[in-house]
């Protein structure tokens, strides 16, 4: 499978995603500079990585969304291609309108880096199909603005259509206010668009793909994508 990992000025998890996909999952990966108007031929999946695109100045992801490559990403998504936005990537996708809602400052107003637990809420998306519903994953977060919000109607749609894929939870899977690291609405950690091919999540799966990095739960997300792509043929 072929992955395109985008690099914006200020991206800093692009190489981590590249490493996980290339050296751990042994896939074809291109780093794609944001000025490119087109994605490399044969791109199956676009990764919008974490970092501080354009310094996160003005608002996280606000300026990156105007990069030339984003038009190509939109087209790719429109064709049903897979797109995963991680952390700053999630912010860029909401700013671009590819995903609903917005990400506000963490409730604590502090940047927070730690491992959290995620309950898989919908195991039928291309990003979670190798998990059982209710499975708990341990994945780190590292962000200052991951406090997901949207209006009541959007929330209802998200819930009704199973677009909430991951929720912050306790180690045993209980979704509690204590398990919510940033104040996100309904403990939301990751959502998909209505078509199900675009995922945004605040936690960093690429950081937990190797045992020595403290866990491999992140692989499940990438492997689900590979599985979905294979199934699609």
């Amino acid at each position, binding site marked *: 499978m072929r992955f395109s990992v985008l690099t914006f000025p200020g991206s800093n998890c692009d190489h981590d995603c590249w490493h996980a996909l290339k050296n751990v999952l042994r896939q074809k990966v291109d780093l794609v500079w944001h000025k490119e108007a087109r994605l490399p031929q044969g791109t199956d999946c676009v990764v919008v990585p974490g970092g501080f695109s354009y310094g996160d100045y*003005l*608002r996280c992801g606000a300026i990156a969304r105007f990069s030339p490559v984003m038009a190509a990403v939109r087209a790719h998504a429109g064709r049903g291609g897979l797109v995963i936005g991680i952390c700053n990537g999630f912010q860029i996708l909401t700013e671009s309108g590819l995903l609903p809602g*917005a990400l*506000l400052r963490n*409730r604590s107003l502090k940047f927070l880096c730690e491992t959290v637990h995620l309950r898989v809420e919908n195991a039928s998306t291309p990003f979670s199909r190798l998990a059982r519903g209710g499975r708990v994953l341990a994945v780190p977060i590292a962000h200052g603005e991951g406090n997901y*919000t*949207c209006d009541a109607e959007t929330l209802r749609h998200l819930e009704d259509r199973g677009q909430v894929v991951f929720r912050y939870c306790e180690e045993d899977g209980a979704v509690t206010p204590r398990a919510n690291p940033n104040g996100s609405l309904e403990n939301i950690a990751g959502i998909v668009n209505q078509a199900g091919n675009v995922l945004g999540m605040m936690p960093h799966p690429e950081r937990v793909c190797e045992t020595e990095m403290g866990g491999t739960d992140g692989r499940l997300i990438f492997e689900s994508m590979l599985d979905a792509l294979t199934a699609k043929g």
Partner: protein
Amino acid sequence: MILAKIHVTLKKSVLDPQGVAISEALHSMGYPHVESARLGKYLELRLDDRGRSKNELQAQVKDMCERLLANTVIEHYEFELQAIPS
């Protein structure tokens, strides 16, 4: 030269974690009568208006707000233009 003064504020329905923190800090500093605080952004753009009408600039600043300066999912904006010596 035109100065555009732009205010971007969170919509009423959106919780403002920074505003909450500010009002709590003010309470603990001895200002119990602060009922609430909201934090927004204030932008000043200097625009070269040579060859451009006021209406045109007005429309452009609105576009800039809609496209970049405010995230209309959660934010509200307001602006005024003011002529300044260049």
